């Protein structure tokens, strides 16, 4: 059994499986739901297989078709990749279960193929070992995401999707430009080779600038987040969940990888800039979220704020590398679970009452207890209250900041949590009270409620799994060894 598990090249499976599933869904629209669910479940199993493989054998590297870099395409997976893959598979599965009941026949036929394509793109992205391959997968992911965002049709959704598409393309092109410069300078696309060869030069700085801007745009870091709220808020609930939970993480992953391997050692104050932008994102996003009167927009702005946290790690990594990066990884993972749960819960509310005005939530707690519970639990993780994944992430982040006496960042981290509590409980408070306008109610399938709840529960559970998860992420030493012990 063990031999068999380590013999299969799980990376290839992870890319081909959803792709094949997507094509099958496209070909047999009537069976799309079943095919889609089976594919996603198979992906989940494959990720476990890959995880087992990595745990036993260490870093996974596979040259597709036997062609090695620079000409061939390498697949590469270490702890960080595995974390992202696992998050994708888990959240993806949860959202798939939800979507199975959410989309009606016609929508389902369109949703499943694109979603599986997106899944394939995401998996490929997390497994890529060279910068150009990352571009292709990034672009693929972007296109699939845009298509999903447009799924709902109508003015808002199409407008949002269009804006998203333009931003996404612009980001990809900027990134590609950077790739060109890097290749020109060092003659390689492979990240590992670049890491060895790269040295500070104007071209590298230009590449860093272009790639960063492109990726920040796609990650929707403040102030480049303008496209996110309309796109995320107007898409169908499961799509919003996918976009917020996974898609923005794709581009962030690339940035993180590049930073860790190529740009990080160069220094030069960019990390400070990232930290500043992250700060801006946390404050601006949280304040905007507090101001919203619509639930979905609130959740979308919350994503803007939470993305800021990921970037707080950059300025801290210089002297507390492992802690800061572990924090970022943990925040990414728990945000994926929590934000997906939040959007799914929002979808339930929307379906139940036909609107998402916060002031008129009208005792959702009584009428959709599981959904309200899911929202609250996800909120706990977003706020960073213990026990939750968000708490672990924030704890590590605070620890990294405090060891360096970065009081500015400490206060931002704390303040962000308080503001998050503000907007989460704004919703929950109204969910308990009787509204002026009582709304008509529509049945919400149990599966949809449970999917949201289980995802949220996963975010909570992460609070207890920090040790195993972080040891898994540490495989292949993605974050280096520059640990400053407390």
């Amino acid at each position, binding site marked *: 059994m063990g031999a068999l598990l380590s013999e299969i090249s799980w990376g290839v499976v992870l890319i081909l499986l959803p792709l094949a599933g997507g094509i099958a869904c496209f070909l047999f629209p009537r069976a799309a739901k079943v095919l889609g669910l089976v594919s996603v479940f198979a992906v989940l199993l494959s990720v476990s297989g890959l995880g087992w493989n990595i745990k036993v054998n260490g870093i996974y590297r596979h040259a597709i078709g036997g062609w090695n870099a620079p000409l061939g395409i390498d697949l590469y997976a270490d702890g960080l990749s595995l974390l992202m893959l696992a998050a994708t598979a888990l959240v993806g599965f949860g959202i798939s279960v939800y979507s199975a009941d959410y989309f009606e026949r016609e929508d389902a036929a369109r949703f499943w193929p694109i979603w599986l394509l997106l899944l394939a793109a995401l998996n490929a992205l997390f497994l890529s070992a060279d910068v150009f391959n990352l571009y292709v997968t990034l672009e693929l992911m972007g296109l699939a995401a845009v298509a999903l965002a447009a799924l709902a049709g109508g003015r808002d959704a199409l*407008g949002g999707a269009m804006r998203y598409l333009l931003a996404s*393309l612009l980001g990809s092109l900027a990134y590609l430009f950077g790739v060109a410069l890097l290749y020109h300078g060092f003659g390689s696309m492979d990240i590992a080779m670049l890491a060895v060869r790269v040295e500070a030069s104007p071209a590298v700085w230009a590449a860093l600038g272009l790639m960063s801007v492109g990726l920040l745009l796609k990650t929707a870091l403040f102030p480049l987040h303008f496209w996110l709220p309309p796109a995320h808020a107007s898409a169908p609930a499961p799509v919003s969940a996918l976009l917020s939970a996974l898609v923005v993480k794709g581009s962030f992953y690339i940035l993180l990888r590049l930073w860790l391997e190529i740009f990080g050692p160069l220094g030069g104050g960019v990390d400070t800039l990232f930290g500043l932008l992250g700060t801006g994102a946390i404050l601006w996003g949280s304040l905007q979220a507090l101001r919203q009167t619509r639930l979905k927009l609130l959740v979308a702005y919350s994503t803007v704020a939470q993305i800021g946290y990921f970037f707080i790690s950059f300025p801290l990594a210089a002297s507390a590398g492992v802690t800061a990066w572990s924090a970022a990884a943990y925040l990414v993972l728990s945000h994926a679970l929590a934000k997906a749960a939040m959007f799914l819960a929002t979808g339930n509310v929307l379906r139940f009452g036909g609107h998402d005005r916060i002031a008129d939530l009208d005792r959702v707690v009584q009428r959709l207890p599981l959904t309200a519970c899911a929202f609250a639990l996800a909120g706990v993780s977003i706020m960073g209250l213990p026990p939750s994944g968000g708490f672990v992430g924030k704890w590590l982040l605070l620890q990294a900041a405090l060891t360096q006496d970065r009081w500015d960042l400490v206060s931002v981290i704390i303040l962000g949590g308080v503001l998050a509590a503000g907007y989460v409980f704004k919703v929950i408070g109204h969910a308990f009270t009787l509204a002026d306008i009582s709304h008509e109610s529509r049945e919400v399938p149990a599966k949809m409620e449970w999917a949201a709840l289980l995802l949220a529960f996963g975010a909570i559970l992460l609070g207890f799994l920090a040790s195993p998860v972080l040891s898994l992420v540490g495989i292949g030493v993605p974050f280096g060894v520059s640990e400053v012990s407390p």
Partner: protein
Amino acid sequence: MSAAFLFALVGVGLFSLGLYALIVHAHLLRKILAINVMGSGVFLVLVALAKRTGESQPDAVPHALVITGIVVAVSATALALTLMLKLTAETGRAELPEDQGK
């Protein structure tokens, strides 16, 4: 100044022009075209920089990349156009919804 560098410079110019157009123009078709111009600029840079100093033969890899890039660009453009058409059908104007008020 070598020819390759000139090409690269032109590529940068195209990229910048495209960016300008993307931001300035409200009409979606113009925006899509602007994106394509930007893409061409990048491709030009890639091709031009394939002629690396000291080597007689240009590097083949960037060419392969450009081909892949073009494929991606085409599909992106197709998606963009579809979206634009749908949006136009929905709103009657080929502009981003928020821009209509201007």
